[in-house]
């Protein structure tokens, strides 16, 4: 199970995300995907993604499912119906949004929403698919975390906390599934040029392209790599950040 030709059925949760869309393009380009399931919150935004992918790969059957991304019963129902037609060989969990940190500090509801969307929800989706893949004895689950989850910092710690949750969850799932033929890949992108970071781009920040990040994800998941930093340089950057003594870190304005 080390090359993409084995991924005949793929499910993407959060399919309208720029990174997920670029991953889908790469997977479809190989011409070996029979069925692609796009799952997202907004029924109005899925058709455009599906249309783009269908033009690129007329030979793949593309299904779109819009629905609640947070409630456990809704998640379980969706996963059940997807798996009824065949358990996906590969699942990518890519949904999320970048919350406004000051808003989270002044409004607990905003903080709760950010933690649910970016932390709890991805864990629930992974949990729902994990059982089905484990029963098959094979599969790939990719979960998009973030470098922000490596260490909480003042400018985005609510988001960072959610992604930290995702990391801890992924570790546990990897342990549970060790030796089963199901591999879990935790992806940690650095800041990437997508609609979610438009405000950073407008300030002139240098962001990775979604194409580059998608390439790293597709390669990492093909190999079943446990943790992928995208681009790779973030592994070194975050190693340093994680090991800065607290007294030093607290003086930094990041």
């Amino acid at each position, binding site marked *: 199970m080390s090359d993409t030709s084995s991924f005949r059925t793929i499910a993407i949760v959060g399919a309208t995300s*720029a990174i997920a869309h670029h991953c889908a393009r790469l997977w479809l380009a190989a011409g070996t995907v029979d069925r692609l399931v796009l799952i997202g919150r907004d029924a109005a*935004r899925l058709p*455009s*993604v599906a*249309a*783009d992918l269908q*033009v*690129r790969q*007329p030979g793949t059957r593309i299904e779109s499912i819009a629905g609640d991304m947070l409630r456990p019963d809704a998640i379980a129902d969706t996963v059940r119906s997807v798996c009824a037609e065949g358990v996906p060989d590969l699942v990518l969990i890519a949904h999320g949004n970048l919350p406004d940190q000051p808003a989270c500090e002044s409004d607990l509801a905003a903080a709760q929403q950010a933690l649910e969307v970016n932390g709890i929800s991805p864990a629930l989706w992974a949990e729902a698919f994990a059982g089905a893949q484990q029963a098959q004895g094979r599969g790939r689950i990719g979960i998009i975390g973030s470098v922000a989850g490596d260490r909480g910092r003042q400018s985005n710690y609510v988001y960072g906390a959610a992604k930290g949750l995702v990391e801890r969850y992924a570790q546990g799932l990897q342990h549970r599934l060790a030796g089963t033929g199901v591999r879990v890949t935790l992806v940690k992108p650095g800041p990437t040029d997508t*609609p979610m970071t*438009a405000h950073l*781009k*407008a*300030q*002139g920040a240098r962001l990775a392209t979604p194409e580059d990040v998608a390439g790293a994800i597709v390669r990492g998941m093909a190999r079943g790599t446990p943790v992928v930093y995208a681009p790779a340089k973030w592994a070194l950057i975050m190693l340093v950040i994680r090991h800065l003594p607290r007294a030093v870190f607290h003086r930094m304005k990041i």
Partner: protein
Amino acid sequence: MVAVHSWGRLQAAEHTLHALADHPPTRLPLAEGQHGLAHGMGRSYGDVCLNPGGALWATRGLDRFIAWDESTGELTCEAGVLLRDIQRTFVPRGWMLPVTPGTQFATVGGAIANDVHGKNHHVHGSFGDHVTALQLLRTDGLRMHCGPGLRPDWFAATVGGLGLTGVVTQATLRLRRVAGPWLDTETLPYASLREFFALSDASEADWEYTVSWIDCLSGADARGIFMRGNHVPGPVASPPRTPGGGKRTVPFAPPFSLVNRLSLRPFNTAYYHLHAQRAGRRLQHYEPFFYPLDNLLEWNRIYGRRGFHQYQCAVPREGGEGAVAALLGEISASGQGSFLGVLKTFGQRTPPGLLSFPMPGVTLALDFPNLGESTLRLFERLDTVVAAAGGRLYPAKDARMPRALFESGYPRLPEFLPYRDPRIRSAMSLRLFGD
């Protein structure tokens, strides 16, 4: 505010960037009193894609295909789609863009706004000739469909309209069938302008693609390499190696131009002889034939920190040989220039846009390192030759043409003016239109 420059790297002015990300966009974000402009890949050389101090609507997020009709070859896509992605998706399926400029790294919107042309102009015209419909978004929120048969006046204003009539958000293109990626090509050295024109005329009937590289320092005894090509009509038994994805990049701009008096003459001499030796017929993949420079990413950096100008003109065939000889004489005398001189004939076709650049005749394009005043003075001398011949300059390459030359070169300009969006402006429009 973010510093943005175009391909010529002549200026890096500050802009307010807004990425268009709705599929489709329904409004153009603009602050009170501000003007804006669409910006794709920034492959134009001068200031057609810049709006210093104003807003830029970045279209790269509009990179989706929308629909494909295999029976008609019509592709509908968002305006931020790269020409490269169209080619890479469809050539393996037996379809290709009928017209493509010298780089694949341009967007569909940019190709329409500049009505770009390629090496097969005499057969297939320019990019706008293959656009069957487009959607335009104006700053007042108006969204309009237009095409050659629907609101043709808006279409003719927008094709080659330099982005000034509104933002193209999506377009429908008619692709053409191809048997594969291979071209049957022939390379022929020539040693005079007379020979060049004879080759062009002789190639017109039997060859779809024609272009030539010209040694800009050779003066009146213009020497160069003529290249022509046709699509291979069937399968190829043993194709040459497909070009690898290997790309090199110029990592930084040196403090001076690598193209200068010392490097140019020996390079041009070597280049001419190298290609003269390889003269003859061979099979080539379309990528290196159409896009010779795309494999050297950021090649514009070799001109150093001062950037470079491109001078591209078109002159009518009548008197064209004399005009080109005069231009080459001026350039050779100045010692300025680059090894990227291109000389090509245009076909007898009416262009689709009011401000389209191609005209029946011949076009000469050359890069010049920006040496400040001496470059601008040389260009003024070239302008005189072009104006006297009844020719014009290509706005997509231009950063300095005088308003008078623009007006004399584009007689349909008065018809274009009513279609301008009042809140869209570029550095070029300020320079050539006054606002």
